[in-house]
């Protein structure tokens, strides 16, 4: 029950910020009562009718006050004596006391008192804050602060006698905002220029810097990757076989859309339903790849329908988390235990995403280097055919075991090949036969063959990408009992949860069921209380390490309350009014003093605002996995900064691709592709690239709205010994020898080294010094 304790503690800390219009002693339902009820009571006395015990629900005032079979009422507003709830949470008899002792839950004395006070004062319920549209708030007036964000933050600080930290040094600020906006550190000349510019007009210098970074095409890479986490993007099919797939055009679409500052409403609509837009362009179809980043199970013996359903479950859960900040996925098997979403409503939502086929789109004018692909195809063909020819004896033996049943399962291609006399068959015929027979159980063959097929298709058909396409005749969607695809029950029509704003039918759809486009437009509706808040919060989280709502993908009843609710609403409304421009939102945040303050922690911070909920300083954040690579590439002068195209294969340690069932072939890229940004590294879901995985890059199995930031010995081993980082160290050694240690230090940290730091480095040989620089905590951290 630690969490409740903390929530309560925080709530107390925030009482003024949250409930300005209430005297301090007043109990707030959301702040004080709901967390206690939701965590301890709702699992059995909540919204979910199936797990409801004793016919009691405590999530509505009607339910709480209802006359129960036992002749009592759980809550009688104003009367502790008549409220059964009070008796049951205070009784010493184990068989009666609530929550039950075997539930693993218990109430503290403070919580009991809080519930009692609440009931005594009338047991007032309030609608959940996140389901009410953001309200207009007047920006508070705070002396010496003009930026709206600073005024909201400063106002809350002032009420608790706290204040913002000093601005970070120009070097720190430059490095911070560069890493935050484009994911790359500044160059030496950029540092020098910025320092000079700040000497004459610091404010103007900084604003110009922000404008330059937002105009950089690398901005799309940095914030594109932020979105790709949520899209669960990766380059393979997942599950156990995990064959490569081609969907990088979707990745490039995201980077380009972010760079163009495609308004977020349009950005959303194209990804959810781009194919349904009038005269949909190729780009808009590519955008629907968002929901094709689900896994595909290629195991033998599966029921394809089961795994198609799994993809749809994932699409529902992802849509809920990413855009609504709700764990809708919880209602797959049962009514949601905490939030007002019934299982029936879940399947109505599901129905929107259940009517698609999943084709590959051939992409014209993709800008792919055909000569390179052809060369890859030829070499992969040679590899697989050589392998098959080396297994001729086994192949002949296998042919003798064939019976008619087995032949029935052959592809056309294989049937054609088997009718040719054995000595007349080409190597290609043999490959086809090997594929339908022995090959399915031969992991080496699979790896070679699947790579070959991938390149062959790319040459034959040009690059493709995975997209969604609406079916002419929709599937019938039913509620699935227990979430199991084998247990359909009543049919449902597409619809949205009733707790949220109503679904509007576009006029041309009158008389038909609403479709994905209607869903997309419903999500981006001005009436939606959630999406704008959820997105601004998630952007905020990138800059401060934590959102204004800490549970960034749960804005439901179990989620945390916003620390600065007025600011959250103000940002959400401002985002909508600025035509859903992400660039404007970024500019708004990074130009605030709150963002620009120092991240150094002092005695005062730790005693007065230990967890930084008042934002009395910035936060040091370890860089994202890809950016750890990008910084080392840049510092060592190796970065090849070209944008987009098929994923690349920087070196990985030998044997690293052997984690899944099939050991995947990883031929390290030579030439420029060896030095591309981490964003472009090929990601096999079952065998993720170790140097990214170890720094918490998401696995692509399900949506990731917030990365972990761990700090482990394996990270140390990677930075110390991984071939790639050793290559970087050799390159940085050359820089040390050419430009000196001071410059190398600045390339890694963007600041000048102190004399004592230089002394330590000077005691080492140049390669060691280079390795030390790449391993500094500071080099992999944004301060």
């Amino acid at each position, binding site marked *: 029950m630690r969490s409740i304790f903390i929530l309560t503690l925080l709530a107390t800390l925030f009482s003024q910020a949250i409930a300005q219009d209430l005297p301090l002693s007043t109990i707030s339902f959301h702040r004080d009562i709901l967390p206690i009820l939701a965590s301890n009571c709702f699992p059995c006395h909540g919204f979910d009718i199936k797990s409801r015990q004793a016919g009691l629900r405590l999530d509505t005032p009607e339910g709480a006050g209802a006359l129960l079979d036992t002749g009592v009422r759980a809550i009688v507003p104003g009367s502790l004596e008549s409220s059964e709830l009070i008796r049951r949470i205070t009784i010493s008899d184990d068989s009666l006391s609530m929550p039950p002792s075997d539930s693993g839950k218990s109430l503290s004395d403070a919580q009991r008192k809080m519930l009692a006070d609440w009931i005594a004062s009338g047991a007032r319920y309030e609608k959940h804050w996140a389901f009410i549209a953001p309200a207009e708030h007047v920006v508070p007036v705070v002396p010496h602060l003009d930026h709206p964000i600073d005024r909201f933050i400063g106002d809350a600080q002032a009420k608790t006698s706290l204040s913002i930290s000093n601005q970070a040094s120009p070097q720190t600020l430059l490095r911070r905002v560069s890493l935050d906006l484009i994911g790359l550190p500044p160059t030496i000349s950029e540092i020098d220029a910025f320092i000079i510019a700040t000497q004459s007009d610091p404010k103007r210098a900084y604003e110009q810097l922000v404008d330059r970074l937002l105009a950089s095409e690398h901005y799309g890479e940095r914030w594109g990757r932020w979105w790709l986490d949520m899209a669960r993007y990766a380059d393979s099919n997942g599950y156990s076989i995990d064959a490569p797939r081609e969907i990088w055009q979707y990745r490039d679409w995201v980077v380009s859309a972010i760079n163009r500052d495609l308004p977020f409403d349009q950005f959303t609509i194209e990804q959810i339903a781009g194919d349904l837009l009038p005269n949909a362009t190729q780009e808009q179809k590519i955008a629907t790849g968002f929901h094709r980043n689900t896994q595909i199970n290629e195991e033998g013996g599966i029921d394809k329908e089961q795994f198609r359903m799994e993809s749809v479950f994932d699409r529902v859960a992802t849509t809920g988390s990413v855009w609504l900040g709700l764990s809708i996925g919880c209602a797959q098997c049962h009514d949601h235990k905490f939030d007002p979403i019934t299982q029936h409503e879940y399947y109505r939502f599901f129905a929107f995403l259940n009517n698609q086929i999943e084709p590959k789109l051939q992409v014209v004018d993709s800008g792919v280097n055909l000569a390179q692909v052809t060369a890859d195809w030829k070499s992969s063909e040679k590899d697989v055919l050589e392998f098959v020819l080396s297994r001729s004896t086994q192949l002949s033996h296998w042919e003798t075991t064939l019976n008619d049943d087995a032949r029935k399962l052959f592809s056309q291609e294989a049937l054609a090949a088997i009718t040719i006399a054995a000595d007349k068959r080409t190597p290609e015929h043999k490959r086809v036969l090997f594929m339908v027979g022995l090959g399915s159980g031969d992991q080496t063959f699979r790896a070679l063959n699947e790579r070959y097929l991938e390149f062959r298709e790319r040459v034959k058909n040009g690059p493709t990408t995975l997209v969604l396409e609406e079916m002419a005749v929709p599937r019938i969607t039913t509620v699935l009992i227990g979430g199991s695809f084998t247990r359909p029950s009543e049919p449902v029509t597409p619809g949205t949860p009733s707790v949220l704003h109503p679904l509007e039918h576009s006029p041309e759809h009158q008389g038909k069921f609403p479709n994905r486009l209607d869903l997309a437009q419903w999500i981006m509706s001005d009436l939606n209380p959630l999406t704008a808040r959820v997105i601004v919060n998630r952007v905020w989280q990138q800059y401060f390490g934590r959102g204004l709502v800490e549970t960034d993908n749960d804005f439901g009843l179990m989620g945390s309350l916003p620390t600065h609710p007025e600011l959250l609403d103000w940002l959400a409304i401002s985002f909508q009014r600025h035509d859903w421009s992400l660039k404007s939102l970024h500019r708004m945040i990074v130009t605030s003093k709150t963002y620009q303050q120092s991240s150094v922690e002092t005695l005062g911070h*730790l005693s007065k605002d230990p967890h930084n909920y008042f934002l009395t300083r910035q936060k040091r954040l370890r860089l994202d996995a890809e950016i750890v690579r990008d910084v080392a590439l840049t510092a060592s002068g190796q970065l090849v900064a070209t944008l987009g195209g098929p994923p690349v294969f920087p070196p990985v340690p030998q044997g690293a691709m052997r984690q899944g069932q099939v050991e995947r072939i990883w031929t390290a890229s030579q030439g420029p592709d060896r030095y591309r940004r981490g964003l472009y590294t090929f990601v096999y879901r079952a065998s993720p690239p170790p140097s990214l995985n170890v720094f918490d890059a998401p696995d692509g199995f399900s949506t990731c709205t917030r990365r972990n*930031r761990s700090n482990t010995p394996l990270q140390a081993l990677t930075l110390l010994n991984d071939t790639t980082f050793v290559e970087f160290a050799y390159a940085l050694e050359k820089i040390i020898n050419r430009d000196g240690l001071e410059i190398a230090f600045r390339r890694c940290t963007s600041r000048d080294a102190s004399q004592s730091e230089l002394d330590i480095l000077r005691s080492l040989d140049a390669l060691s010094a280079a390795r030390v620089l790449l391993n500094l905590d500071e080099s992999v951290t944004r301060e």
Partner: protein
Amino acid sequence: MPYQIDSLHPQTRRHLFGQCGIGLGSLALSKLLGSNQCHADSEIPTAHNHRTPLEPRSTHFPAKAKRVIFLFMAGGPSQLDLFDYKPELAVRSGQPIPASFVEGKRFAFMDSSHRVNLLGSTRNFSQHGNSGGWVSDLLPHTGGIVDELCILKACTTDLFNHAPAKLLMNSGTGQFGRPSMGAWLTYGIGSESSDLPGFVVLQSGPRGPRGGAVLWGSGILPSAYQGVPLRNKGEPILNLTSPAQVDSARQRQVVNAVRDLNLRHLIATGDEEIATRISAYEMAYRMQTSAPELMDISGESKSTLDLYGIQDIRESTYARNCLLARRLIERGVRFVQLYHTNWDHHGGPTENLETHLPQVCNNVDQSSAALVLDLKRRGLLDDTIVIWGGEFGRTPMGEVRESTGRNHHIDAFTMWVAGGGFRGGLCYGQTDEFGFGPVANPVHVRDLHATLLHQLGLDHQRLSVRFQGLDYRLTGVNHARVVHDLLT
């Protein structure tokens, strides 16, 4: 020893204890409650000396067992040819299974045409030990240790395809992105090893297990808790070896300089993450020595090597992995998992019951039994749990393709557990005459998880992590119980 914060530069100490005015306990606590939302229930995160992610932490109640070795038979062993002796199945072999058994059931390979006829085992079964447990002739060494084993004959699971079922066995759910058991354990109670990872994975057999790295992933927990594969070829841990031309002294110089510079920066910024990173580098450096030392089994006696059936100490085999498992837990590692492929005997050309099942049994039988015996004679079995089993079992019906096999089966299958307070010589659970479903004492995977955690001193209801508003647990939201019958 972990990097001792007490030995930090005096100025740092002044900063941490003076200028900051607080102890490290609250620093660590602030980390737990601050930027990262993960926390377990009450006692665990408030342990005041929680400095590094893997530091040992207190349990919910006194533990019977301290560590786990999970021998994962990837693919799903045929319990009907190994443990679950069914004479009636042999009598009715070739006949269709009565419809009452299969109505409404689903199996993998639904399109396979020969799935309805019963298939008796051709193996010889006999009773072993004082307890009289049935084991077939395919596992003679296992038969020799039945009095140490708690054999669960009616295990059940929910999912019948490999990758999802493996996930369920490891993480309690078929959904991707949840922490595996080893991750839960190291998260909950840390590790007693200061120079090896707390959760180690070893692999043998012709291919990697289906599902891949996610099987030992940390899911929503930080990657500090994910399983670290110890590799049989090349360096045992990825990137363990210093770069060419960098000898140990030069590597030490680099690590020292990184530490000295990081320490200065810790003083300048007050960010305790830097202290964690300093510890991580110290452990990484120690691992560079301790992991090769661990892998070097040349010092093991001939009798020990013979016990496990290791002929060539350099050869990477399941037997060698069993010995390594013992060496790992001797060094304080909390959770060791061995995957051995391939047990997926469908009756295809390379996976049938006639030839390939005996081969894979032969791969694992002697050394699995040896591990139990070796632990016992060293006094380690009492507080070490050894688990043997796959992600599911196989059907009483045969699958006849090119040769004979059986399909995936989730209603009843066999696993065994030894040591760690589990009752030796117990056969728990019973299946019907064909071995199709349980008739007494089924144990669901979640029950097994709850029971394992119980022995390790953890209440499965309380070992939880708050993530995005929900409390996640190894045993999830469905019913799970501690099976006290299995425990001494």
